[in-house]
């Protein structure tokens, strides 16, 4: 292990020992001194150190092989639904944990082995390569320009303008077919965004119980979500319809309602507003019963339900549309028509 055992010829040439700063160039101390001399690593000098590095690399590659065997064993042996507790992560899926770690180790040790090999055993002598200008030399450029001129001349594109113009016309027009083909990506909007499933006489059905709501079901301070009667989760158009007609219902003390129209469209203080945020369409779901504010959890637009659901904070541009409600002959809450304005995010034709 001691340095006496290292053969003399392997030792690096003796270097200037006193390390004094010697400025090579008297005239320009800032001049480029050129590539520094190569410094030997211990592996370059001592074959035993090199052997040690070799063993480290081989060990890492062997660990990789073992890890791959462990991966296969885990895949076969561990049931896919077994959970284990791993500190400090908590309960996790055992198979995922085992497969991931064994795969990780198998890959990482290949990488670590290769990098260690490169750093300790491959030559670390720096080499300088010359760069060449990216630009072509002038004679090459001249040749290319002349060739191009010749080619252009032979094509007669400049001279036979009729060919040129009709060709440009044809090339410009044909992509229109492609544009046309995109037309049937979807139907035209028409007035679809202005209408929902709500109409006069549709009962308000509780989203959770799937039963029509009576005024007595809605307590002061509660928040209830409702859908129009007849819309079922299994309907093909359910997702698209609920995206427009989702409703939130709260009961306020009628004296607390500041907005005159809101009070008119309410029933005994029960108000129904669109649940779809007028900003970019998230469902609003956070209700603060003391202040009657609702907050959209996506972008924090805040609406005051006691004041016509006007925006009091956040990026939404206008109030939530209100649905006019009343009570049917059987005593259930019912809509007295569709929303008077489009629900959800604003759009150009909204007006």
């Amino acid at each position, binding site marked *: 292990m001691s340095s006496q055992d290292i053969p003399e010829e392997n030792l690096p040439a003796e270097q200037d020992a006193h390390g004094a700063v010697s400025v090579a160039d008297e005239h320009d101390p800032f001049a480029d001194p050129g590539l520094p001399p190569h410094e030997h690593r211990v592996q370059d000098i001592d074959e035993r150190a090199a052997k040690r590095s070799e063993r480290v690399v081989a060990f890492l590659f062997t660990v990789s092989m073992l890890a791959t065997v462990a991966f296969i064993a885990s895949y076969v042996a561990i049931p896919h639904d077994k959970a284990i507790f791993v500190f400090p992560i908590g309960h996790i899926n055992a198979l995922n944990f085992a497969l991931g770690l064994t795969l990780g180790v198998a890959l*990482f040790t290949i990488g670590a082995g*290769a990098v260690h090999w490169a750093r300790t055993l491959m030559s670390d002598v720096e080499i300088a390569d010359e760069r060449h200008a990216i630009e072509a030399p002038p004679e090459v450029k001249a040749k290319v320009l002349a060739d191009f001129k010749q080619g252009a001349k032979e094509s007669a594109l400049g001279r036979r303008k009729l060919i040129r113009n009709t060709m440009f016309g044809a090339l410009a027009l044909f992509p229109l077919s492609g544009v046309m083909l995109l037309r049937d990506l979807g139907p035209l909007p028409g007035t679809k965004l202005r209408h929902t499933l709500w109409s006069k006489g549709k009962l308000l059905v509780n989203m959770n119980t799937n039963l029509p709501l009576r005024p007595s079901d809605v307590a002061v301070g509660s928040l209830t979500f409702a859908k129009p009667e007849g819309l079922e989760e299994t309907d093909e158009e359910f997702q698209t319809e609920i995206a427009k007609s989702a409703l939130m219902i709260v009961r306020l003390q009628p004296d607390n309602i500041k907005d005159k129209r809101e009070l008119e469209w309410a029933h005994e203080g029960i108000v129904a507003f669109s649940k779809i945020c007028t*900003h970019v369409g998230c469902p609003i779901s956070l209700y603060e019963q003391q202040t009657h504010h609702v907050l959209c959890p996506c972008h924090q637009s805040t609406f005051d339900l006691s004041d016509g659901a006007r925006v009091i904070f956040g990026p939404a541009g206008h109030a939530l549309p209100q649905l006019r409600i009343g009570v049917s002959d059987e005593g259930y809450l019912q809509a007295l028509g569709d929303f008077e304005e489009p629900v959800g995010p604003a759009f150009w034709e909204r007006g």
Partner: protein
Amino acid sequence: MSTTTNTDSRAREKAPAGEKIADWADGRLGIYSLAKSNMRKIFPDHWSFMLGEVCLYSFIIIILTGVYLTLFFHPSMNEVTYHGSYVPLQGQLMSEAFNSTMHISFDVRGGLLIRQIHHWAALIFLAAMFVHMMRVFFTGAFRKPREVNWLFGFLLFVLGMFTGFTGYSLPDDLLSGTGVRFMEGAVLSVPIVGTYLSFFLFGGEFPGGDFVARFYSIHILLLPGIMLGLVVGHLILVFYHKHTQFAGPGKTNNNVVGMPLLPVYMAKAGGFFFLVFGVIAAVAAIASINPIWAMGPYRPDMVSTGAQPDWYMGFSEGLIRVMPGWEINVWGHTLVLGVFIPLIIFPLVLVAIAVYPFIESWVTGDKSEHHILDRPRNVPTRTAFGAAWISWYFVLLVGGGNDIWATHFHLSINSITWFVRVGFFVVPVLVFIATKRVCLGLQRRDRDKVLHGRESGIIKRLPHGEFVEIHEPLSQDALHTLTAHEQYVPAAIGATVDENGVERKVKGSEKLRAKLSEAYYGEDSQIPKPTVEEYKEITSGHGHH
């Protein structure tokens, strides 16, 4: 004639098998000529040059795992009832997309691991591209001849964002569906054509039954196909231009100093692929990502709190969250500025950094090739601009997570929003000024080091009692490295009156350029680097002090 052929064929018979195969390939593909210039190609060494490698490797990992996922994923929005092994969702209605993602996560052995590797690698890919881009920016590696490659890289970053967005929307879970809804709202805000675009994108009203299938082909074919082409082009250009290097002894603008591709970089770079893959696999083993089973299938009338996009979309989220809700209603139409302005600023934030190299090259008017990297301190205005841009980006990220900041740090969401609204304009300016000052300070320090040497920490007491610190002079290597950078002189407009007294018209662009040049390279924007004369005067006369 015949004898030479004979010796030739005999030599070939004796050649090892590998050489024979190479001969075969060379006769058809010309591989020897290709290898001549590339096999021992020199790559310089610096830790920051690995960042691009992380991008490349995570991209490869994403493609490998992505192909695996397509074997099991059903890109369909048909509603089915869940019967898989995750008990809490059994009996629920969900789209086939969600159902098959559940199947991958719970019933395909290793499926969850591959899904998590795929998603983690995507986050790392974007993060690595961001940091790599900043490395290239701050060291000036984008200068001629590499401007085109800068744009390739920029496009990869932008396309990566959209590939990520379309990818995490595929499982049709509650969180990603909320993100898609946000996108739909943003598209609707586009004046005149917004509703049409939205209807064409979703095949009708949101959410409809088409977007998963459409996003799928965009996510697995269209965007990755373009990106693969750009990656190949990016790498070809890296090889063609040869890598940049930092200034140092023996390193000039006309050479490249480092180690050869074969064997050192084959082993290092090849090994690094496995290191990156290994780390991502381990992360996917221990850190859950996008647990769609906890969020449930998408319903347009449901949402969870704390909804956040993947990080690289966060700045657009910030824009949309902090924008005041302006709406203009005239002549029966609505101009949804509150959403449309963020939609416009979103690409502008990215374009701001993308076009910077072209602005800088216009200001400097420098037409030469640059292969020696700048130290950020030596280009204070560029560095300050880059730092300001990053701060801008991060202010928007804070805005995008305003609810998370509010709940985790017990802050008012309103004040965070207001902070971002003000910070959007103010923070970049402050960061610009501060960064520029720091750069100038560091330049002064370099200048002092060159002229007076390194502070050794040794205090010497002089015979008359005075204490002085000994400064050790720098080696010539260090002197060269610290003075190797070029310093531009501000461009002047030049004489506006010619020798005949005729006044020349100065174009507005010329004036602007002179002004910018003064701001870039004027007295307040760089510290003159020490000259040989200054050095000699200080070192020769009265020794150290």
